[in-house]
């Protein structure tokens, strides 16, 4: 989501293999070029492939030595074109991306791009289950003038809800921040989660089955 001074991006650290929680310490956020963050959901190998291609583009940018670097607008537009052309050839990159960033002296940029080539700019977006569980929370609480801490707290809350209700989510996250001067991806942050609810722990049936909840 965008906040007062830029834009943040958060994702959990899980790479699933179908329904198996296979790799639990994966960073799904990637710094691209100087000003941009790419967050990837879906097929991780496609995310890695595209990341490598974008790194090559960033290197070529740097090689021009003219102080001119591509920003989030350029990268997100380019990724949108790639995704749409791949889907049109029936060979999609099976991902939902969030491309965020902020170049100094320019407004913050936030774009959603997916495997169909759908691309749009918004103040806040989410992929996967985040779309269903997180967006309602964001719609209630997001404001354009949020501070960084407020934005981080809101993102954390959304991912907590995702962990509670999405059985393929995870309780460790990264938060990336683009504020116009730098792009920083945090160290892994464990989420708080509480399982001591009465509904979960109190006995409801005659026999000692603690897991019955009705």
């Amino acid at each position, binding site marked *: 989501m965008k906040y007062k001074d830029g834009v943040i991006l958060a994702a959990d650290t899980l790479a699933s293999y179908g329904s198996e929680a296979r790799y639990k310490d994966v960073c799904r956020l990637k710094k691209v070029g100087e000003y941009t963050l790419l967050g990837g959901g879906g097929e991780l190998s496609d995310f890695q492939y595209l990341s490598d291609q974008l790194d090559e583009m960033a290197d070529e940018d740097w090689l*021009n030595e*003219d102080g*001119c670097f591509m*920003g989030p*607008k*350029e990268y997100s537009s*380019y990724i949108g074109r790639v995704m749409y052309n791949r889907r049109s050839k029936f060979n999609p990159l099976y991902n939902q991306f969030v491309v965020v960033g902020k170049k100094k002296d320019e407004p913050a940029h936030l774009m959603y791009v997916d495997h169909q080539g759908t691309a749009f700019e918004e103040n806040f977006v989410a992929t996967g289950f985040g779309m269903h569980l997180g967006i309602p929370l964001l719609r209630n609480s997001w404001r354009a003038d949020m501070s960084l801490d407020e934005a981080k707290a809101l993102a954390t809350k959304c991912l907590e809800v995702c962990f509670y209700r999405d059985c393929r989510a995870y309780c460790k996250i990264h938060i990336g921040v683009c504020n116009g001067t730098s792009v920083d991806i945090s160290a892994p942050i464990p989420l708080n989660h509480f399982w001591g609810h009465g509904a979960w722990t109190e006995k409801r049936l005659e026999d000692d089955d603690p897991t019955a909840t009705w």
Partner: protein
Amino acid sequence: GLLSDAKNGKMNRNQYDTDVSTWSPQGKLHQVEYAMESVKQGSCSLGLVGKDFVVLAALKRSTGDLASYQKKLFKIDDHIGIGIAGLTADARSLATWMRTECLNHKFQYDSPVTTGRLVSDIADKHQEKTQASWKRPYGVGLLVAGYDRDGPHLYQTCPSGNLYEYKAMAIGARAQSAKTYLEKHLDSMPGADLETLVLHSLKALEGPANDKDVDVKNACVAVVGKNQPFELLEGDALEPYLRQLK
């Protein structure tokens, strides 16, 4: 120059000037030099850079009273335009290529192309033609005016493939007299407003015009810069400026 030497019979046509892939013993590529001569034969185009604007101006030639005046200034994109001197057909080919590149870049990256990078690619195109025996160099010089995120720029491209950035420059016939005028007023350009820059560009054309008048028929001006997409000033639009110069 080469042309006057040829007319005087002083130029030596030699065994090293038939194709561009042959070096002369003096280390020259004569075909490239002959191509640059073609640029010098074209009518004058000039450009100058202010703090927020680039102005291009040119003298248009006509073959006679019944004919139209040859177009010298071309819009490439909202933020880029060119002035040409030399083979117009070569210029149009390059202009078409530049326009396509600009459009493709805008479509892919949702962002205008950086002028310097586009011009760098043109220079590479020129160089290609100097390193193949079955091609010929472009016979046109371009003055490329562009306004990027980091401000206004003026570049010159050459049949040799060399690339230069300038604060002010003139190419084509009698360009030296325009350059002399531009050098004299160079220090005042960064502080000048757009109208003053346009007046300077028209005044600078008076040298190359020689004894002829600079009027609404044979002069053309173009401006590009901050909050100013590339705009051509021709015909009656030049009247208020030309009046000020009288």
